[in-house]
């Protein structure tokens, strides 16, 4: 244990900056991501992250050409390039959204196919240009893909000691936050009800392309420091995780920001510790660390899976648990109901016949949940006895009476209002009896003028 955590003992300021950069860019991505998710355009972000490569390449050409034409000095090329890169990515991002939409409308191409054609073509074009003009364009493809999050903190702004990546991603995050707050109403409405948004005068096209442009800008700012993998993951995974945890949009946005930060921290820590664990367990030479960007994406995925399993409302565990509880309740109530009916038909002095025992055995043991439900009822004190030799207690009889009352009232109700075969009353009542609450029972009783017997002629207990 101690040995696998040992890399953390050498945690430095550099590691802190890595987490800060990862967290800032992840938060910046999560903001537009929330709206992409709700607008069912998650893959659009993915596509834009590919196509912006073309924008980046074009930006290199432009800044290179500006130097050649002596418009700017080589010294300022780098800072100019950052601006052109941003503009280039936004232009290409909006362009890919526009091309996709045009293909969809003009060519009747299905939307995901249109998206696929556009992003693969533009990305291939970007790749080709990089390779073809490799002498002039110094873009390290690995850098675009994987980022340089570990070395990013080394490039600082002036003497302040603050890494440039922190500043860039911080500014983008601030812009995104500001726009989200200012345009919250418009964004929300056009995400949930585009038709209503249009009738209320919110320009749907402007919102669409604005969001695309914003996404592209966020992506390209984050590329340099964290690479496109982290960006693709952070755009959708934290918002999706938050979406599983809450139904309110403001809460979802805040949660997705928190999850983004958590993923960054968790990702870097596991990048430092997990590889050692893996390489030792596989038995190859010690590996000190893994790509932090990759691990941050993986950590976000891990959090998503956790939310998927353990979420309070939509989590799989909770849903399975609720279903189990319902199953047990129904099985228990069925046992109570049968016992009540048996007491009703057979006088107490002959209640321990062999027939009763055999009959009860099949009822309480025909499935694992009825066995378990019987055991629970005994523990709760509603039944006494053990195994298949059980009797109702007074409290148990009270509960059983309510259930049988529900059953027979419902049968009477069906008989009064619907023309159904006799057998059908029972089938329906067998299901509905478990879901009738006291108010509804009173309503039924009133509607039927307090009937004494059900359609089969049996007394309805009070």
């Amino acid at each position: 244990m101690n040995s696998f955590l040992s890399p953390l003992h050498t945690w430095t300021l550099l590691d802190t900056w890595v987490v800060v950069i990862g967290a800032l860019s992840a938060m910046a991505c999560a903001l537009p991501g929330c709206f992409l998710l709700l607008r069912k355009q998650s893959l659009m972000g993915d596509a834009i992250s590919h196509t912006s490569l073309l924008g980046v390449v074009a930006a290199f050409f432009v800044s290179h050409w500006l130097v050649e034409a002596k418009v700017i000095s080589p010294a300022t090329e780098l800072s100019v390039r950052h601006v052109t890169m941003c503009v280039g990515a936004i232009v290409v991002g909006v362009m890919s959204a526009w091309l996709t939409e045009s293909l969809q409308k003009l060519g009747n191409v299905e939307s995901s196919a249109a998206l696929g054609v556009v992003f693969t073509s533009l990305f291939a074009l970007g790749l080709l240009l990089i390779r073809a003009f490799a002498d002039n364009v110094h873009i390290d493809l690995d850098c675009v893909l994987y980022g340089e999050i570990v070395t990013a903190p080394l490039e600082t702004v002036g003497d302040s000691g603050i890494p440039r990546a922190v500043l860039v991603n911080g500014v983008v995050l601030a812009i995104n936050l500001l726009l989200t707050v200012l345009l919250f109403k418009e964004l929300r409405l056009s995400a949930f009800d585009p038709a209503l948004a249009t009738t209320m005068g919110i320009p749907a096209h402007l919102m669409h392309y604005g969001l695309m442009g914003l996404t592209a800008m966020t992506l390209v700012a984050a590329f340099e420091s964290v690479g496109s993998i982290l960006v693709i993951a952070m755009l959708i995974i934290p918002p999706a995780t938050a979406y599983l945890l809450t139904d309110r949009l403001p809460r979802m946005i805040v949660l997705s920001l928190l999850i983004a930060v958590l993923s960054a921290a968790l990702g870097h820590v596991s990048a430092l510790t997990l590889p050692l664990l893996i390489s030792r367990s596989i038995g190859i030479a010690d590996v000190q660390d893994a790509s932090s960007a990759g691990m941050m994406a993986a950590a976000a995925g891990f959090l998503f899976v956790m939310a998927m399993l353990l979420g309070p409302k939509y989590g799989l565990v909770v849903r399975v648990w609720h279903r189990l509880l319902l199953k047990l309740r129904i099985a228990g109530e069925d046992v109570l109901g049968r016992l009540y009916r048996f007491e009703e038909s057979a006088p107490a002095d002959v209640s321990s016949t062999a027939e009763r025992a055999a009959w009860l055995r099949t009822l309480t043991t025909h499935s694992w949940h009825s066995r378990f439900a019987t055991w629970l009822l005994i523990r709760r004190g509603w039944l006494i006895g053990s195994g298949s030799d059980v009797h109702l207690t007074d409290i148990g009889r009270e509960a059983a009476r309510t259930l049988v009352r529900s059953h027979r009232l419902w049968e009477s109700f069906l008989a009064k209002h619907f023309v159904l075969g006799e057998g059908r009353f029972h089938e329906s009542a067998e299901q509905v009896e478990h879901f009738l609450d006291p108010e509804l029972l009173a309503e039924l009783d009133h509607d039927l003028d307090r009937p004494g017997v059900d359609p089969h002629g049996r007394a309805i207990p009070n």
Partner: protein
Amino acid sequence: MSAASLLAADSMWELFARAVSLRDYNTRVVLAGTTMLGVSGGLVGTFLILRKRALAADVVSHAALPGIALAFLLAERFAPGSGRSTGVLLLGAFVTGLLGMAMTLAIRSWTRIKDDAALAIVLGLFFGVGTALFTVVQKTKTGNAAGLRDFVFGKTASLVAADVWLIGGISVVVIVLCGGVFKELSLLCFDEEFAAARGYRTTMLDGLLTLMAVTVTLIGLQSVGLLLVVALLLIPPTAARFWTNDLKIMSGLAAVIGGVSCAGGVVLSAAFPRLAAGAVIVLTGSGLFLVSLVFGKERGLFPRWRSQRQFEQRIGRSDLLRACYELLEPILGADETTQESLTKFEIDELELSGMRQWPTGRFHGLVATAVREDLLVATSTGGYQLTLRGAEEARDAVRRHRLWEIYLLTQTDLDPRLVDRGADGIEHVLDPDQLAELERRLGSESPLGVPPSPHPIAGVSLN
């Protein structure tokens, strides 16, 4: 030009010629194998597109990355030196690729997250884990990841023959399999419920399709790279869709487009080694896609624009001729509008243009076309006369119009003022059978004759 640059140009030409003429054994093998890959991609992609699942291939390819890295690590652990074997790496890719597909399915069916987001989530997650594992691979002693990196960007031209045999062989298997279950797959794509009712096991068919898609995606990784391999399955069928509505022709065409773009990509990248092969293959496909988008017979932009224009011209022509007839009718008297008599009178241009709300430019265009097509002749006094052909078409147009008007009047409760407009739209799309049926129903006494108008005819000024 200096001698050195001449020499360089010469050797470049030499290289180009070698590549195009397929003088190298390796180039020939790569060409054959990659073409097969393109064909199988086009075929399988056709069905994937119809089931609107094309982008699933993108998820599979990204999800393959951790599998490749893990397979390498495990193989190096248990049999050092075997980690670079294509078979082993593909096996790893296959396992995680399927796992990725399974996870999208799980997210889609167990949570409230939609299909597109499920794809994006799995893609991001697996790609992230994959890169993390790749850095681990790179840092092991044997793990110079150069060979593995090719899975990301592809390296078609420098593929070794053994790998290509594997790729080509698997492709052929997929092609044969696809042909074998073609009928079942088409039924699955167009009417799943019907297929199930016919007794086909749709779940198994769907699984088979997924399996084939995963297979093609994975064997395409080395040629095109995982970032672009989805294009192999996506672009050819989407392009083919512009040419036809017939699934058989579409899948055949998709196979051809896939094959051609792969072959073209291989030759081009062999001739210009600096160009990334994967990107060239994809862009060749994109080029074919653009051609199909513009010229595709069934859905292409140009044919659709042309037939739209032809239809509009036909409507304009028949409107113009009907206006001529209706202008002459009061002069001749309703019973005297025979073909010959219609040609005898001159039509005033101003009166004619007043019959309908034509924009001036359109009116002059229509008249010019009609004169060119020998339907109208210009007279020396600046008016027009109908030719025999023009008169015939004019009678036909009026007949269609009035038959429909009368039909509307007798069979519906439509206001008489509205029947003119109703007939205006329908008259152009009535075929001869429908006209005969109309005449029969209305009990018209003179078949092929022009019935009198059921309402007073007026120029636009009176409307």
